[in-house]
């Protein structure tokens, strides 16, 4: 069966420090991968998505970047964190094969609560 791992679960970082959040998927190949941010336990904002190794699409101009060095690995990074980067970050994957419509189901990681102080 497929699983998604996201770590760390919580992170407290000072302003101006770098960030690296990692997400890996097991039990599937060539998944679509996503990074979302959720502010204050509410709406989801899509940050990045990837349809393949090295292919990253950015949805929101910001202080963050994403990379996909391997098929099932997705990394969210920042060189210098801002206070506004605080939030709950969620990684997700969806199957690529078959119909995009019927395979639209997203599988989410357990999230990382990031506090920038």
């Amino acid at each position, binding site marked *: 069966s497929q699983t998604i791992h*996201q770590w760390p679960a919580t992170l407290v970082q000072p302003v101006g420090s770098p960030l690296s959040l990692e997400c890996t998927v097991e039990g599937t190949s060539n998944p*679509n991968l996503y990074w979302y941010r959720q502010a204050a*336990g*509410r*709406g*989801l904002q*899509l940050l990045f*998505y990837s*349809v393949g190794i090295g292919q990253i699409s950015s*949805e929101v101009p910001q202080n963050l970047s994403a990379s996909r060095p391997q098929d099932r690995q997705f990394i969210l990074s920042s060189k210098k964190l801002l206070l506004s980067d605080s939030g709950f970050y*969620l990684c*997700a994957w*969806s199957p690529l094969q078959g119909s*995009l*419509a*019927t395979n*639209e*189901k*997203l*599988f*989410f*990681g*357990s*999230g990382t*609560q990031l506090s920038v102080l």
Partner: protein
Amino acid sequence: AQSVAQPEDQVNVAEGNPLTVKCTYSVSGNPYLFWYVQYPNRGLQFLLKYITGDNLVKGSYGFEAEFNKSQTSFHLKKPSALVSDSALYFCAVRSSGSNYQLIWGAGTKLIIKP
């Protein structure tokens, strides 16, 4: 522009009573509609989806949702609420003509009181 509206920030229901969490959408093509649930400090879990076919869709944990094209709605329902149903519920939509992205509602907090 595509959008999803969840008009209620919070819904309070007594245990055992039926519940409804509302969702309306606006898309340019045929809609693909989804409901997800989020428990505290956790990722989202898929509940159900409507792609085509029967307007009444059944999902996990006894939930169902009814697609109403004329009202552009996809309300989530359950005949008898449980305290364990208390969580944050998200509606999402994608049009048949768009890319990989889902448009998400702001979420509705469901509180089931014993």
